[in-house]
């Protein structure tokens, strides 16, 4: 098994096919979308492939160390930030193909007009622990 991160972006991914902001959908379309996401996670729990899923608030703060005895320096949020993560799902699957297949299904979540959003999701393999036997 190998773990993959499915990343959803507020900004930074190529434009989706059905790219209508959610507040422009009908309330029923929002409900159906939310249900699809919930069902997707439930199904992966059922197949033993779900690890974690989280959503992130759009606004964050950049922080860095600013020297001995000084409070950390903060900055942002930056309106010009190109890449903004919206949330993720971590899955544990047999193959890379399976990870792509599941990301494809997640991207088919219904949006405006009840049609799939065709949203671009980013699939990133986790770096694993080193194997015991290497030769």
């Amino acid at each position, binding site marked *: 098994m190998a773990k993959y991160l499915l990343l959803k972006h507020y900004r930074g991914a190529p434009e989706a096919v059905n790219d209508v902001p*959610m*507040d422009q959908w009908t309330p029923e379309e929002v409900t159906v979308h939310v249900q699809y996401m919930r069902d997707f996670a439930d199904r992966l729990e059922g197949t033993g492939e779900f690890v974690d899923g989280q959503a992130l*608030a759009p606004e964050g703060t950049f922080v860095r160390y600013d020297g001995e005895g000084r409070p950390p320096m903060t900055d942002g949020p930056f309106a010009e930030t190109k890449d903004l993560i919206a949330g993720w799902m971590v899955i544990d699957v047999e193959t890379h193909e399976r990870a792509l297949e599941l990301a494809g299904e997640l991207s088919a979540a219904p949006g405006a007009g009840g049609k799939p959003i065709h949203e671009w999701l980013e699939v990133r393999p986790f770096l694993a622990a080193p194997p015991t036997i290497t030769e």
Partner: protein
Amino acid sequence: MDEALLRTLTPTVISVLVRRGADFAAAEDAVQDALVEAVRGWSDDPPRDAKGWLVTVAWRKFLDSVRADTSRRHREERVEGEPPPGPGEAVDDTLRLYFLCAHPSLTPASAVALTLRAVGGLTTRQIARAYLVPEATMAQRISRAKRTVSGVRFHEPGDVAMVLRVLYLVFNEGYSGDVDLAAEAIRLTRQLAARTSHEEVAGLLALMLLHHARRPARTGPNGGLVPLAEQDRGLWDTRLIAEGVDVLQAALARDRLGEFQAQAAVAALHADAQAAEETDWVQIVEWYDELVRLTGSPVAGLNRAVAVGEADGARAGLAALAGIDPDLPRYTAVAAYLHERDGDPVTAARLYADAARSAASLPERDHLTRQAARLNARPRG
């Protein structure tokens, strides 16, 4: 064996060990071990005297741990020389345990974890699952908390307000897992109310009961939030409401108002209304006035603005909102609601979308997005 029943004995058994001379941290560990053994071994044949069994086994485990720890040899001698406990149990030993677990030196998260374990009898694993953190993290949090209170004398007088804050957090911020934290918070508050006549303990118990009564109506079939005005009031638990109102009335009759009683009074007025439009908003505004006076809390001020909007019209609600800090969580959602009531769906839709972006939970975000969508989807004209 009923595990919940078993857990109710936890604070009593810890107290017995402490009175025999065990320190709190070791006593707490020993009782947890005894509980685990009881859950494992009692299924077919529970002992007649559950408490006596737990005391015996926990004490043995405590002595084992003391013996195993050679650096504590001197304490072993003291403990083994301790006279056997006298008959009966001091009534408020359990109360002292509440105080210790909510000691002001603890952070809220630590106090919550320690209370759930030492007073509630939950295992570290159950608490970790409930708060969605790894078990090792929760184990560290609990053992650090025990170290923090290790210097506190068990019989030191405690602060009821701190205990109430902890119980409120358990009720309000529980997540998931196999333990119903809201029900657990009610159980612990009920147990506390039986041991102290403090009117704010009764106020908090009433507040919890009245909110718990609405739980079946609070989420829709797909897990979405159902706002108070749209809830199916037939789903409200009338038994819990009746109990909450009784507890509240007895507390209010003593004429020492506090914030939990005032919040419970608002909840009771909602519970009284058979339909949303029958809500006595004028009285609710008065209770929020009391709450603002008692606490100065901006959140109370924000909720007051909603109530004013219902009692005196949306324009008055917006005027009440003008004095509130716009950075407050839910401020934008309240503003959206009042603007819609004021006949300005365009502003309301924009504000609902803004509120969705700053929502602190997914169900709230979905709900606010749906509100924006509803207004944006209305026929233009």
